């Protein structure tokens, strides 16, 4: 099995996705290895979210393949991909507004039957986000943007994912909150979580990422180590100015 050595945790080969007749991805090529933080940066409408949605199954690619731990997940429905251990923190957080904080977290562990395991995972989430513990019975929709982002990440952690995908976690948040969220992302990664981070805030993202990809109109135009990309002339002009 010579491939065994080369196999990546997640691998996208020539993925093409459409919204109706409009092509959003023109053959995306990227991979993530276990334990990495990889970031996907690019401007609005470049195809960042579509890439995530193609992985999670919310958008079905027309061409190309997506392999997760060697398994072909290209045609999976979202709940099947989630069961395999890929969690997505969607853009705009998408908290269930009329469920309580507790219920939002429980939903994250929907596939887990053992109540003890659910309680353990919840404690783990509280260790990252102590504030959630104080608000357990509050409705998700009544929380501030920062708290909702914490809840959205906490909800994804309840799945104990093998790969955590975050879609614009800094969107609409005060700089100090963004700082906190990124610290926690870094910490989760240190503890072994593989992370795919999609960001418009390229500076923040590249600072914590092992590697990065730059996406432009549905294609990967640049890839490299986080720090390399940060000093790249093109990237500086386009995204860090």
């Amino acid at each position, binding site marked *: 099995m010579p491939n065994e050595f080369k196999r990546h945790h997640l691998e996208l080969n020539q993925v093409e996705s459409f919204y109706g007749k409009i092509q959003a991805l023109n053959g995306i090529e990227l991979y993530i290895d276990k334990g990495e933080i990889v970031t996907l940066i690019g401007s609005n409408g470049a195809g960042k979210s579509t890439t995530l949605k193609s992985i999670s199954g919310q958008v079905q690619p027309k061409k190309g393949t997506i392999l997760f731990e060697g398994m072909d997940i290209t045609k999976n429905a979202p709940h099947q991909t989630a069961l395999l251990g890929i969690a997505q923190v969607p853009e705009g957080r998408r908290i269930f507004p009329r469920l309580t904080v507790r219920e939002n977290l*429980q939903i994250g562990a929907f596939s887990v039957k053992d109540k003890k395991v659910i309680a353990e995972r919840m404690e783990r989430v509280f260790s990252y986000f102590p504030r959630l513990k104080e608000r357990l019975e509050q409705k998700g929709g009544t929380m501030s943007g920062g708290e909702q982002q914490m809840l959205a990440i906490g909800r994804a952690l309840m799945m104990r994912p093998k790969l955590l995908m975050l879609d614009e976690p800094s969107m609409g948040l005060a700089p100090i909150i963004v700082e906190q969220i990124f610290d926690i992302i870094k910490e989760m990664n240190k503890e072994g979580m593989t992370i795919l981070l999609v960001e418009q805030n390229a500076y923040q993202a590249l600072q914590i990422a092992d590697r990065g990809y730059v996406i432009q109109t549905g294609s990967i135009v640049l890839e490299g180590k986080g720090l390399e990309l940060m000093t790249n002339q093109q990237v500086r002009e386009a995204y860090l100015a």
Partner: protein
Amino acid sequence: MLQQIIQILPQVIIDGLTLGFVYAVVAIGYTMVYGILELINFAHGDVFMTGSFIGAAVLFFMMSVGFLSSLPSLIVFIIVMAITAIVTGLMGVGIERVAYRPLRKRNAPKLIALITSIGISFVLEDVVRFFAELKTGNYIITSPPLFNQKMTLDIHSVMPVFNKITFQSSFILVFIVTIIMLIALDIFVNRTKWGMAMRAVAQDRETASLMSINVNRVISITFFVGSALGGATGVLFMIQYGTIDPYIGFILGIKAFTAAVLGGIGNIRGAMLGGILLGLLEMFAAANLSTITHGAMGAEYKDVFAFIILILVLIFKPEGLFGKAVVEKV
């Protein structure tokens, strides 16, 4: 005039609650499906109707094999309810699979699903009519008597302002069973895992699927529960009112839907309260319209009265009595 109204008030409340509980359970079926799919499932009234006929068929069958006389009525009733609920529940799941899911897959506009549901409604009416006529030669069916002893509650001797109340023993059954169904459903939706999944799917289907929830399964469960409750209520209706025909689902469905809107569509507790309120209003109107208008309008105008109230409520509270004003998604 006021004295007359007060005299019969206890009777009005009893009759209004009976009807109101029936509306409430059927209204739940509308509101649950709307909450999840934003679809007004017009076929639901006819699932209720089909339930009443399936119940009648089971009852007739049990009569023909002699169960009706040899078993206690309550056991017969429970068997009939259980069979009907399971059959109509599965029917609801089947309707969703065959008619609505393919439309959803193709992202058809909501209007198409609505028209489809009206089509299913006609299909159910005609299929039921066909079998009823095939078996009995008539599509209007009078159910075998069950719980039809007349009872009188003499509150007149305690409180002379009120008249006596009379009712059939089936009233007690309708009352207890619908309350059990309402409470059980409330517990299911608010306290169980699949109930929580149902609420999550209603609030944000896409995100729910990211949480490893099989959205199609949740939708099937919703249809099963709504249709099973609706079908079982059809049996209650048959026992309470005696005669059924394939068209009872239409008006009752419209009214149950109205009750759901009155309570705030998508809101399950709202549908319950809306149903009870509508039943009370309707019975109040039926009993008192002629007194109030000095004979100008009879009981047959009860629907007009009930719907005027509905329109008034919606003018001042368009989201329904217990609905939440629509909040923009952030």
